[in-house]
């Protein structure tokens, strides 16, 4: 398969136009760190964007950064970190789960749109993408959005690009919102709760005015599976429920005190401070208990998004019925489930349970063979599926970009 290494944005346009003319679908790749996610694609060439890696403009006082899509996420994160800023949605580093190296590119991060624990407070990638330049499947370079936070000029195509897995357009440059890093953080730890009680505790915390920026629960089995990664939490022995508070030190301490009282019915709280707390949350963000090089590394992993209060019962039921293991983020609204390997990744059962709870499930990690046989992305109602296909087609009528990544090809 050809790999076309793009040198500049013009190359992207030329390559897409040539692909349209020759009807040869393209796989859009930055560093390729998320290539293992999605249905196996029906593409004939790879469009590689890693040379589009410049930081066009970083304006800390405007809280924005404009970068080319192929810029390495890690480099951009250290750049903004040097000004004490961050991407508030805590983009997930999928390499831990997938067993590949590197956190990939900015374009890949937005195309995947996988946000971390702070999503409950700060939103997702879609909330932080302010503007983009991209090449559509018409072979046209277009722009959308702008370089300011407050903007309602025209349709907000950024929302569609985030999480579209490269199926609508090839982003060449994006403007993202950056936010000040909190001066301090602390995590309240509750021990020994079952999943349902844990979600109740997290619901109480999120329903408080204490501005909780992370709410996760590790059942004991998941804690054991990744004990090393959670060294700050002590030796596994009991499940842990974690609630993060961020802000100026006096405020985080004050809220921690108040939240501890709110949570008193759930047990005594322990406190983790700054670096220890941060390490725990990055492990949750990257789903370390199910790391590719860990004990459950060979198990398929589902990412389930559901109404948060329903999460405890759903996760508990799934773990029991599948013999799998789960961890909870977003106060129960995000469940990661690693299930014992099966050719169908137990998709029918998972989806039936998840839909009953009002959620949806994506198969983030599975072998190529499994991904060929299973809908990786959650099937939608007929009407929404048809509308989504019309939306896709409005960007890429010839299905040139990442063909087949979102929808399973049904055998004729």
């Amino acid at each position, binding site marked *: 398969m050809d*790999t*076309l*290494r793009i*040198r500049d944005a013009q*190359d992207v346009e*030329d390559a897409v*136009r*040539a692909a349209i003319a*020759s009807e040869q679908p393209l796989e859009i790749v930055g560093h390729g760190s998320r290539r293992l996610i999605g249905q196996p694609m029906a593409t004939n060439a790879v469009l590689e964007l890693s040379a589009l890696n410049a930081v066009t403009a970083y*304006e*800390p*006082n*405007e*809280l924005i950064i404009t970068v080319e899509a192929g810029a390495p996420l890690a480099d951009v994160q250290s750049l903004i970190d040097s000004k004490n800023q961050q991407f508030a949605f805590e983009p997930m580093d999928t390499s831990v789960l997938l067993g590949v190296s590197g956190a990939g590119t900015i374009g890949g991060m937005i195309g995947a749109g996988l946000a971390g624990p702070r*999503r409950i407070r700060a*939103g*997702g990638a*879609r909330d932080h993408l302010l503007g983009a330049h991209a090449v559509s499947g*018409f072979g*046209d370079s*277009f*722009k959308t959005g*702008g370089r*300011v936070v*407050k*903007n*309602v*000029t*025209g*349709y*907000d195509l950024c*929302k*569609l690009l*985030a*999480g579209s897995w490269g199926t609508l357009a090839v982003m060449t440059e994006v403007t993202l919102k950056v936010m*000040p890093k909190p001066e301090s953080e602390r995590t309240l730890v509750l021990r020994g709760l079952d999943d349902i009680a844990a979600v109740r505790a997290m*619901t109480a915390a999120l*329903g*408080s*005015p*204490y501005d909780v920026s992370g709410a996760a629960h590790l059942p004991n089995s998941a804690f054991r599976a990744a004990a090393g990664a959670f060294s700050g939490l002590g030796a596994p022995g009991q499940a842990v429920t974690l609630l993060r508070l961020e*802000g*100026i030190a006096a*405020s985080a301490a004050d*809220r921690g005190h108040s939240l501890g009282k709110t949570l008193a019915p759930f047990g005594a709280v322990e406190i983790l401070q700054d670096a220890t707390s941060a390490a725990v949350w990055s492990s949750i963000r990257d789903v370390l208990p199910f790391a590719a090089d860990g004990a459950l590394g060979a198990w398929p992993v589902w990412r389930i998004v559901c*109404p*948060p*209060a329903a999460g405890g019962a759903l996760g508990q039921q799934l773990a029991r019925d599948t013999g799998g293991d789960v961890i909870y983020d977003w106060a129960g609204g995000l469940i990661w489930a690693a299930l014992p390997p099966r050719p169908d990744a137990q998709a029918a059962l998972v989806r039936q349970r998840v839909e009953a709870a009002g*959620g*949806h499930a*994506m198969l983030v990690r599975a072998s190529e063979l499994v991904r060929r046989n299973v809908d990786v992305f959650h099937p939608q109602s007929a*009407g*929404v599926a048809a*509308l*989504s296909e019309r939306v896709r*087609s*409005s*960007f890429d009528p*010839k299905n040139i970009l990442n063909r087949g990544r*979102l929808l399973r090809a049904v055998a004729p």
Partner: protein
Amino acid sequence: MAIMMPASDQAVLDRRDAIVAALRAIVPGEGVIDSAAEMIPYESDGLMAYRQPPMVVVLPDTTEQVSRVLKYCGEQGIKVVPRGSGTSLSGGALPLADGVLLGLGKFKRIREIDFDNRVVVTEPGVTNLAISQAVAHAGFYYAPDPSSQIACSIGGNVAENSGGVHCLKYGMTTNNVLGCEIVLMSGEILRIGGKSAENAGYDLMGIITGSEGLLGVITEITVRILQKPETARALMVGFAEVEAAGECVARIIGAGIIPGGMEMMDKPAIHAAEAFVHAGYPLDVEALLIIELDGPGVEVDELIRRVEAIAQGCGSTTCQISTSEAERNLFWAGRKAAFPAVGRISPDYLCMDGTIPRGALPKALARIRDLSAKYDLRVANVFHAGDGNLHPLILYDANQPGEMERAEAFGADILRCCVELGGVLTGEHGVGIEKRDLMPEMFSEIDLNQQQRLKCAFDAQGLLNPGKVFPTLHRCAELGRVHVHGGKLAFPELPRF
């Protein structure tokens, strides 16, 4: 009327009686209004310089009725203009002479309050403020707070992606809605998203939000609610120079402080507001900042200290810090009444709505001053300074021949200046008809074509709210055509591996 609307379809107008009868069969009783006198309240929205009676007004009260009305209109090739409370400042709900005005005012019920999932499921005709009021007893509120929140509907907020004073910290409508029920022009009823943080597949909720009623008619919305911050306190800081106030805004953000709200007024706005509400604003300053910090008491106290120090470092000439809720509300009273206050000192005014990078504030103000001299019209400036959203109020008298046209030309120049300074045409009021013809200042034809293709995915006949947002209408078939450029290998020089 300076803005051209799509030509009326005489064939549709000729069938008016039959159309009214067909609509009555779908929406019985008083739900169909066709008398000229009773349609007067629907002739205009918040952009009152423009008026147009619709062909007929329909006020359905069920999703099924909305679906049948749209299906009928779709089949008959009849244009439809959706309307919430009619508070749009950009003419988003301006009727069409040959169109059905579809009012959602009867969708007034909050369907579900779910504190555990921190969401409210509501019908679109419920006002923004009513949502906050419905959950206030449990300490919750709905964060986006457009100034019209007493009157504006949540459906209209979704259509316009409304902002407000607090969106610097809490986001706009798009950051606070999770799902909806939407009826397409075909009559098809779809559910998008729900109580989960994200919906599956493409972010259709994200594209529906801010689509200005061109993609579908929303009949139910799920919004996020938040716990009210423990406390809020405000500083009112005066500056002898606008530049110093702009610098103060930049330094506060630069110091990592995101206030709940950060508003700026210039001298004419300060004077108008003070004369109206007597909030105790200093009258000898060129710019006034109102900075609100919210959160836990200890945090707010600390941030107040930091902001005060920053303001002093920028040469503030006055600084008052609220010590009670009454005082905080008084600081805000003048700002919140700024529009009516300006209405008292001028027979008419135009409210503009561009956004610029924060750092360009002083430059933008200087340009607006020059333009004010050029057009010989007064201007008062009110800004959401924290996010660079300008609301220059252009004062004019519609009874003076030519003044309205001059005011509009002045406004257009301000928006062009915003784009030139790296900003955008509209921060929160929407494009509507008001800024429609300025869209090419910001977007190329290719950019606009891509947006219109998306419209085609929802409404292939272009019957829903035509004449808004896009300066030129194209047929979907024409937009969907792929032009094949060049031969098979247009990039032979590209490195391959």
